[in-house]
C-alpha cells in the first residue's frame, strides 16, 4: 500500500473537494469516493465517479467524455508540478555538490509541521506560514550541512549518502515524538474552480503556481547573479573555483541551504491540499528520485518535465489500468529513459 498511498491521499481529497463543490453531482455520487477511496484507491474511485457521471451523460457510451479526459489532464499537470517542485531542491544539491540528499523528504516533513505550528500559533493564513517554513528550512539546511556534510565532503559519495540517511531518521523521529504519527491537516477549505465542467482544486493550483515561481526564481538566481554563477562554477570545477577566490565550503553551505529551502517550499505547499503524516515525505521522495533521474541529473527544466511525466503516468495509469499498475509503468518509463538516454531527458549540467 505504500506505493499507492501518496497519490491516493492527495487525489482522494482533491476528488472529494471537486465532487463536493460540484453543484450538479447526483445525490448518490458523493458517497462513492468517500467509501470506495479507502478500498480501491482515491483516483480510481474518482475516475469511477466521473465515469459514472459521463456514462449517464452520454447514455451508455463507456469511453470517457472530453470533459473527463480534460479533468484527468488537469489532475496530471497539478500532480506533476508538485513532483517537479519536490525534485527541484533534490536536483540542485545533487547537481552542485554531488550529494544524494536522502533527508530531502524529511526536510519537507519538517516544513509541513512548521506550517501547521505557525498557523496554529499565529492564527494567520497558511500562506503566511510558507515563507516562514522556507526560511526555517534554509537555516536548518545550513546547520545540517555544517554539522554533518562539511566534515566529510571529501569522503566518498556513499558516506554522504549514509549521513543524510541518518539525518532523515533523526528528523522523522523527532517529528513523530513531538506530533505523533497521526495524520494532521490544516482544515483549509480552498474549494475548486470550475471551468466548463472541469474542476481545478485551488490548493493544488496554488501549489503549482508557487512551484513555477520557485523554478523561475531559482533559475534566474543561478543564471544572472554572481553568487549563482559561483554556485554553478563550483558545481563544474571545485578546484578551479577556489583559484578565482570562491570560498567553496561557503558555496556548499549556501547550496545545501537553498536545496533545503526548496524542500521547505515543497513541504510548505503540500498541507494546502492534503493531510500529512511524518511518513509522507519518504513517499514523495521515492518518486522524486525517479523524476530527477528521468529529467536529467542537475537539470532544472528536467525536474519539471520528469515531474509531469510521472504525474501523467500516475493519473492516467490509475484511471485506466487499475490498481497500482501505474507504478510499474513509472518504473518502465524510468528504465526506458535510462536505456535510451542515460543522462536523462534534459540531462546535462546544473545550468540547463
Amino acid at each position, binding site marked *: 500500500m505504500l506505493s499507492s498511498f501518496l497519490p491516493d491521499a492527495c487525489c482522494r481529497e482533491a476528488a472529494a473537494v471537486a465532487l463536493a463543490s460540484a453543484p450538479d453531482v447526483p445525490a448518490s455520487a458523493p458517497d462513492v469516493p468517500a467509501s470506495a477511496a479507502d478500498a480501491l484507491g482515491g483516483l480510481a474511485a474518482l475516475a469511477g465517479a466521473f465515469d459514472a457521471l459521463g456514462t449517464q451523460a452520454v447514455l451508455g457510451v463507456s469511453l470517457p467524455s472530453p470533459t473527463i479526459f480534460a479533468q484527468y489532464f488537469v489532475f496530471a499537470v497539478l500532480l506533476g508540478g508538485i513532483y517537479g517542485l519536490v525534485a527541484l531542491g533534490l536536483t540542485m544539491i545533487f547537481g552542485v555538490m554531488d550529494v544524494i540528499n536522502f533527508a530531502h523528504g524529511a526536510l519537507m516533513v519538517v516544513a509541513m509541521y512548521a506550517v501547521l505550528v505557525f498557523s496554529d500559533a499565529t492564527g494567520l493564513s497558511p500562506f503566511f506560514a510558507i515563507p516562514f517554513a522556507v526560511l526555517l528550512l534554509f537555516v536548518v539546511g545550513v546547520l545540517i550541512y555544517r554539522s554533518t556534510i562539511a566534515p566529510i565532503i571529501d569522503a566518498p559519495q556513499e558516506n554522504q549518502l549514509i549521513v543524510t540517511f541518518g539525518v532523515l531518521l533523526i528528523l522523522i523521529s523527532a517529528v513523530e515524538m513531538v506530533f505523533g504519527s497521526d495524520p494532521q491537516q490544516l482544515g483549509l477549505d480552498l474549494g475548486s474552480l470550475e471551468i466548463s465542467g472541469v474542476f481545478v482544486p485551488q490548493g493544488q493550483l496554488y501549489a503549482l503556481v508557487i512551484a513555477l515561481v520557485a523554478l523561475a526564481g531559482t533559475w534566474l538566481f543561478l543564471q544572472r547573479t*554572481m553568487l549563482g*554563477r*559561483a554556485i*554553478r*562554477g563550483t*558545481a*563544474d*570545477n571545485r*578546484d*578551479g*573555483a*577556489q*583559484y*578565482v*577566490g*570562491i*570560498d*567553496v565550503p561557503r558555496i556548499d553551505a549556501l547550496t545545501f541551504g537553498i536545496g533545503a529551502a526548496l524542500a521547505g517550499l515543497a513541504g510548505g505547499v503540500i498541507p494546502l491540499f492534503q493531510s500529512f503524516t511524518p511518513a509522507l515525505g519518504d513517499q514523495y521522495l521515492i518518486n522524486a528520485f525517479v523524476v530527477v533521474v528521468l529529467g536529467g541529473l542537475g537539470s532544472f527544466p528536467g525536474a519539471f518535465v520528469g515531474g509531469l511525466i510521472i504525474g501523467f503516468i500516475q493519473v492516467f495509469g490509475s484511471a485506466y489500468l487499475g490498481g497500482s499498475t501505474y507504478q510499474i509503468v513509472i518504473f518502465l518509463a524510468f528504465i526506458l529513459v535510462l536505456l535510451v538516454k542515460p543522462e536523462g531527458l534534459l540531462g*546535462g*549540467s*546544473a*545550468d540547463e
Partner: protein
Amino acid sequence: MTRPILETEELTKRFGSLVANDKLSVTVEEDTIHGIMGPNGSGKSTFFNTVTGFYRPDGGTVRFDGEDVTGWKPDEIARRGLARTFQIPSPFEDLTVRENMLAVFTGGIRSGMRISEEKRARADELLELLEIDHVADQEAGGISGGQEKLLELGRILMLEPACVMLDEPTAGVNPSLRNRLLDHLETLNDRGTTFVIIEHDMRVIADVCDRVTVFNQGQVLVEGDFESVTTDERVRDAYLGGAAEHDASLETLIGEGSNASASEEVEAPDAGAATDAGATAANAGADPASTGGAGVVPAGGASEAASAAASSTSALSGIGAESDGEPWLVGEDLVSGYGNHRVVDGVSMESRDGVTCVFGPNGSGKSTLLKTLAGVVPAWEGRVTHRGVDVTDNGPAENVHRGVTMLPQDGGIFGDLTVRENLLLGGYTVSDGAVREERFDEVLSSFPELEGKLDERGRSLSGGQQMMLSYGRAMMTGAEVYLLDEPSSGLAPSLIDQVFEMTRRLVESGAQVVLIEQNVREALRIADYVYILAQGQLQFEGTPGDLTDEDDLVELYLGLD
C-alpha cells in the same frame, strides 16, 4: 620505409558545424617516427581520437597494418597493435604505479584472470627503463606530472604495440627527462615500433622525426621531412600569424645552438616592443597595463601610458599595487606535501618585483611549492606572509581576496560554463561592477581569439584557447601577486611568446609574478630573479646574470651539486 603501417584516407570528423578534421589523408611508414605539428585547434588531438576509435569518423577510412579498422572500438584497436597516450595522463589514481602497469589487459579479458610472470617481469623492466621504479609502490594519484607521463607511456608499452601515438609526450617535461624519453623512443623505434607524435617542441621534431605532417584548420598543410616543412612559408604563417609580425623564424625558436647569444637575438625584438608599444602591431591592442583606469586607450596613446604603467594603478591590479622594492609574498622554511609524501622540504622564497622564476626537474616540488604559497596545499611547517601579514592558514579564496592569485597548471576553467561566465567569475572577488566590466574588456583585447567564443562552453575550446581563458580569468582577479604554474605548457610557439608577453604586462601593471616554467632558456629572457628547486630543496637563488654558465645551470637543475 618499406610499407605504410597506418593510412587514413579523407578522414573527416565534425562537431556540429565545426569540421575538426577535414578530409585528412595521412600515411605513416612502418618503423618511422612521424611528427604531427600544427597550431592550436588545428585538429591534431581530434585526429588521434578518430584514428584510435575514441571518436566515430564522419567520413573516410583508417587502415592499420593492412586492415580496415574504421569504426572499431578503442580497446580493439589498442589490442590490434595501435596504442596511444593522452595529452593529459589519466592513471588509475588509487592503484600503485606497478598495479597501473599490471592492470593493462595485454591479451583480452583472459589476461585479467591471472597475472603471468612474464607480465610482471615486463612491467618491472619498463618501470626501470623509464626510471620510475623508485615510485613503483606509491599510489599513482600522488606522483608528479612528469612521472605520470612516463607511467602513461609505460602502460602503453605493456601492450607491445606495433605503433604508438603520443599526444604531446614532452609537454611539461623537463629537458633532461625529455632527452631520456626521446632516447627511449629511438631505442624502441630501432626495435621496430612505429611512433606518431603530436609535438609543439620543435627540437623534439627536429631530433627524432623522420617525417612531419603539418595540420592547419583541420587539413593537411604540408608533409615532408623536417627541413622542407620548417622552411615552408605556409607553415610559418600558420604558426606565427604572418611572418612580418615576428622576427623569430622557426629555426631561431628551435634554438638548436642556443648559447647565450642566440637567446639574446630572440629577445631583442621583444625588448623593443616593451618600449615602443605602438610599433608592435600584435601587441598594440593587447596592452592590459596601459589601458589602465582610463578605459580603452587607442593604440597611439599606448606607449605613453605604458611608460607610466609601472607607477600608476591599472584596472588589472585593482588592489592598488605599487612597486616598493619589497617582496610581497614571502614563504619561510616551507614544508608540505601529500599524505605522508614530503614534496617541499624546507624552502624559503619570495616574490620580487618583476618575474620570479622557479625552475626544477619534474617532481622537484615546484607546483607544490606554488600551491603551498597560494594556500591550496596546507603548509606542514614554516610560514607564508603577504605584506607582513601571516597568511599561512589562509585558504586560496582568502588569498585571492588579498590579491594573491594562482593559475593552476591545468587552467582550472569551468568547462560547462560559457567563456563569458568563466571570465566574469574571475572577477568574483571584485565588488565594483564597473571595474569588472573594464577588466573584462581588457582581457578580451589581450586575447581577441576569445571574443568570438564568448557564448561557447569552456570545454569546447582547444587546449591553447583554454589556457588563454584561464590566463584571462586569472587576470580578472586583479591580483598584485600572480603565481603562474606553467602557463605555456602545451601551447604553440607563437602563443608561448604571447604568454611571456602577457606575463611582462602583468609586471608592468605593478604586479609581482612567480612563474614556473619548463623551458628555462625561454623563461630566462623575462626572469628577474631565479629559484632552482630539486628534490624539494632549493639548489640556487639569484639573478639570471648569475646563471651565465649553462653547465652550472644544468648541474643545478638536476641537483647534482
